């Protein structure tokens, strides 16, 4: 600068410059550090300065008289000018600091700040509009940043609130399906994606090393995307890349465009991926939030997976225990029912069981292990097996409970379990039972009179006699009663009688009454019908077990023959009388009597040929239209000396010619050899008197 070359006083410098400016007002106008324009009141440009011309690339003669100012603005700016600036300018004479974009001659946008002032004559008539234009590129960039920051702050607050809500939802989600649904939904509601879809990694057992998310497509792109997601990175695939790299995922998402992959992670493993379509949060905050969501969702998935798995195992366990084969005896009817708790969240520890202690004694039990879930189901399984094993010792219900007390000492999860256990002698109807902290069984006699069995009660398992290991003998009480033929004994778990705000005595009495009034209904569906009646909507808060045993539900003829011909004829006379008493006469009578005699004779002749007077048990029951007979001996089976010709085909278990005859007389015959031999047979009888066509007893020779 000249001021440096030739030092002069400050005052002199200022005066010189002032003079120079005065001299070149025209130059000041043309080359001012801002654009100047004047327009006529109708907007046509009247004059522009060189600065404006340079900035916009328009030569002055292309503008002056040719264009209106608003035309030089972007479309939005043009509308803004017409709707906001022009009215204001006309009303208040001046408008300042309007931010808009000039479109330069070569089509670029130049961010500017514009001031307008209306120049009027003395009568207030507009003469011209004077416009100054300032380059606002820098400032606009800064403002954009401010706006962006503001937008981000607002967005962050909104999203944070939404993510918090999602996290709360995730914490409450009971299973994988619910977690998946919540995560997919928040893709659109929180992150503004067009759609979201969750894909879970192939099932990973807890503790196993991570396996790849299942993605298919060209190996390089899909592979690297998968690897990055696996490593916990949020990955964005641009439009076509997404379709090419992950065709499956891309097809699962509606629409087209970018796809964002968010790993769902827990314990340093990627359990799945949330794929979002559309422009969700491409900023850093959004990515961080997506990552947070992924972590929260991953943990929820892990929790849900474990809980699903446990529930599955517990359900399977319980199911397997409740579906074992129940005893089949003509003197016995059984009906069982299990209802899981209404919310299905947790498997309970209820169970029922029925098994034969010996050929004439059936044992039944309903029990309830404290707690829910896998532990309860496992404890229930152990207790059930222990009970089956210990019951065969044959010491009776009281002693059995004592032994179970000792057993649960070693299985804490089974401690405080309650159960009711009963042994029924199928010959006499004698019932021995004991109740460990469990609701009392109900007996309903053939007339429908209910009785609650309140005796033989003691505390839940493990709750007493901690020192019972001294082997001092049975200390748990038991009780005895007799069931009359046609009675039904019902055992149940407390889920059936526990109701909020109602005393247990009352609901138990109510149940007994219900069982009484419905005593005539068919046994098979009986327990289910009772459960339906008691449980609102078919399920309660707790799981429910019901077991009903019907004693000698049908007329029964039972006699044991000692191996002599005399006792066989005595049995024949008794059976004949019993059949006639129950209106089995004529052909049916003769056929059953003959078949029965034949089988018993066979047993005596062949089963006990070498021992003499082994017992042969004959059991006949009468159901509508059918007579069932079971003959059982404890002898040793010997093959018969087969004759050269026989009336029947080959029969490996044939004990003689008699069996062919028996087959002819009865509708169906089966022979089993175990300890001894059991012959089970029946004959249909219902239509014998009517003489209807086709009503001949099956199997009779024609």
């Amino acid at each position, binding site marked *: 600068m000249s001021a440096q070359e030739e030092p002069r006083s400050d005052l002199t410098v200022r005066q010189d410059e002032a003079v120079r400016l005065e001299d070149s007002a025209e130059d000041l106008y043309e080359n001012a550090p801002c654009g100047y324009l004047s327009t006529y*009141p*109708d*907007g046509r440009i009247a004059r522009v300065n060189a600065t404006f011309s340079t900035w916009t690339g328009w030569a002055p003669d292309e503008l002056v008289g040719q264009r*209106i100012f*608003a*035309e030089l603005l*972007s*479309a*939005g*700016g*043009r*509308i*803004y000018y*017409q*709707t*906001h600036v*022009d*009215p*204001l300018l*006309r*009303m*208040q*004479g*001046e*408008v*300042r*600091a*309007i*931010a*808009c*974009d000039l479109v330069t001659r070569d089509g670029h946008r130049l961010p500017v*700040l514009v001031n307008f002032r*209306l*120049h*009027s004559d003395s009568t*207030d008539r507009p003469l011209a509009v004077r416009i100054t234009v300032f380059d606002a590129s820098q400032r*606009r960039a800064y*403002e*954009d940043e*401010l*706006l962006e920051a503001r937008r981000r702050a607002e967005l962050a607050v909104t999203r944070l609130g939404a993510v918090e809500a999602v996290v709360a939802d995730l914490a409450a989600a009971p299973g994988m399906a619910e977690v998946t649904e919540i995560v997919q939904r928040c893709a659109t509601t929180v992150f503004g994606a067009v759609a979201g879809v969750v894909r879970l990694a192939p099932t990973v057992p807890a503790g196993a090393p991570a396996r790849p998310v299942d993605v298919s497509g060209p190996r390089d792109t899909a592979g690297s995307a998968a690897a990055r997601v696996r490593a916990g990175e949020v990955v964005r695939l641009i439009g076509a890349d997404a379709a090419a790299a992950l065709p499956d995922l891309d097809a699962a998402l509606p629409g087209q465009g970018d796809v964002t992959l968010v790993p769902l992670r827990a314990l340093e493993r990627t359990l799945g991926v949330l794929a979002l379509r559309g422009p969700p949060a491409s900023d850093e905050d959004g990515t961080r939030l997506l990552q947070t969501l992924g972590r929260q969702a991953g943990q929820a998935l892990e929790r849900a997976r474990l809980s699903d798995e446990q529930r599955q195992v517990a359900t399977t366990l319980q199911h397997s225990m409740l579906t074992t084969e129940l005893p089949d005896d003509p003197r016995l009817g059984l009906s069982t029912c299990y209802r899981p708790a209404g919310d299905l969240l947790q498997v309970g520890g209820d169970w029922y069981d029925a098994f034969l202690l010996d050929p004439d004694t059936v044992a039944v039990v309903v029990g309830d292990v404290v707690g829910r879930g896998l532990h309860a189901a496992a404890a229930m399984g152990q207790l059930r097996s222990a009970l089956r094993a210990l019951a065969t010792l044959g010491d009776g219900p009281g002693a059995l409970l004592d032994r179970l007390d000792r057993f649960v000492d070693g299985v804490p999860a089974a401690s405080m379990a309650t159960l009711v256990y009963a042994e029924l002698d199928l010959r006499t109807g004698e019932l021995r039972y004991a109740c460990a902290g469990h609701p009392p069984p109900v007996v309903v006699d053939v007339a429908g009179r209910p009785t609650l069995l309140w005796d033989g009660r003691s505390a839940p398992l493990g709750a007493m006699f901690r020192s019972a290991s001294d082997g001092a003998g049975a200390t748990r009480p038991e009780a005895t009663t007799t069931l009359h033929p046609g009675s039904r004994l019902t055992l149940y778990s407390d889920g059936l009688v526990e109701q909020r705000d109602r005393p247990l005595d009352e609901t138990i009495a109510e149940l007994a009454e219900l069982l009484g009034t419905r005593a005539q209904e068919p046994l098979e569906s009986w327990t289910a019908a009772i459960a339906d009646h008691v449980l609102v909507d078919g399920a309660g808060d707790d799981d429910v077990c019901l077991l009903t045993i019907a004693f000698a539900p049908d007329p029964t003829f039972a006699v044991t023959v000692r191996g002599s011909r005399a006792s066989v004829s005595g049995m024949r006379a008794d059976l004949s009388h019993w059949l006639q008493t129950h209106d089995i006469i004529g052909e049916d009578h003769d056929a059953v009597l003959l078949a029965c005699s034949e089988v018993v004779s066979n047993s005596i002749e062949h089963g006990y040929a070498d021992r003499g007077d082994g017992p042969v048990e004959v059991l006949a029951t009468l159901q509508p239209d059918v007579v069932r007979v079971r003959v059982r001996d404890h002898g040793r089976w010997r093959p018969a000396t087969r004759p050269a010709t026989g009336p029947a085909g080959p029969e490996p278990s044939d004990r003689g010619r008699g069996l062919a005859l028996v087959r002819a007389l009865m509708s169906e015959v089966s022979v089993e050899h175990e300890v001894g031999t059991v012959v089970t047979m029946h004959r249909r009888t219902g239509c014998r008197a009517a003489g209807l066509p086709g009503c001949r007893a099956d199997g009779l020779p024609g």
Partner: protein
Amino acid sequence: MDVLARNNVRVSGRPEGPPIVFAHGYGCDQNMWRLVTPAFEANHRIVLFDHVGVGGSDLTAYDAEKYADLHGYADDVLDICHALELTDVVLVGHSVSAMIGVLAATKEPALVSRLVLVGPSPCYIDQPGYTGGFSATDIEDLLSSLDSNYLGWSTAMAPVIMGNPDRPALGEELTNSFCRTDPTIARRFGRVTFTSDNRADLAAVTVPTLILQCSEDVIAPAVVGTYVHEAIAGSTLVTLAATGHVPHLSAPGETAAAIAAFLAER
């Protein structure tokens, strides 16, 4: 709710005269009518108001759902007429309020006796077979212009007429009173205004209608004015010498004369 307070309703002119309701357009408020209303004060009852979200209206009355389309605004106009117990209303609507007036007149044709549409456009965005003057992109550009001016809003909108001796006509009461608007509402109103398509509503207009079309109006070009004229049976189209989009400010005399001539027709 006090409708008159909600919409900042101002009544002037001859109390027993036939009423004229002036509805301002997008971007401004009732002040924009100040240069034409004097022409009618002697014989008419003048009703001015601000749309909710603008000027002196009650911002708390803004309901995004109600004002998601122009019907909410039309209902407000009718509310005002009922609150003032007006009959045989002449409804003058500028820009977006021209369409608001169309909706109001079709909702209650018995209430509105005449319509004056200043710079109307039933649809700003070009559609197949229809020229509105703007593309959807242009409208997005406008909405981002609104954002850009958000920071400068106070300076842009605050009148700077203090110490402005060459405009004495603008009295002191105007200070800080022009076109105040809530930025969020302005953005929404802008979107509703420029994305509306009310072409189908025009045919339902049965009252005598005057269309005032400016020369060189980039917001509502002449083809659009012609379209409106053809769609409303029996309407009158007057093309003003005035340029731009706000003839009532740029050429108040010509505008007032055209309206007066229309009202004089019987």
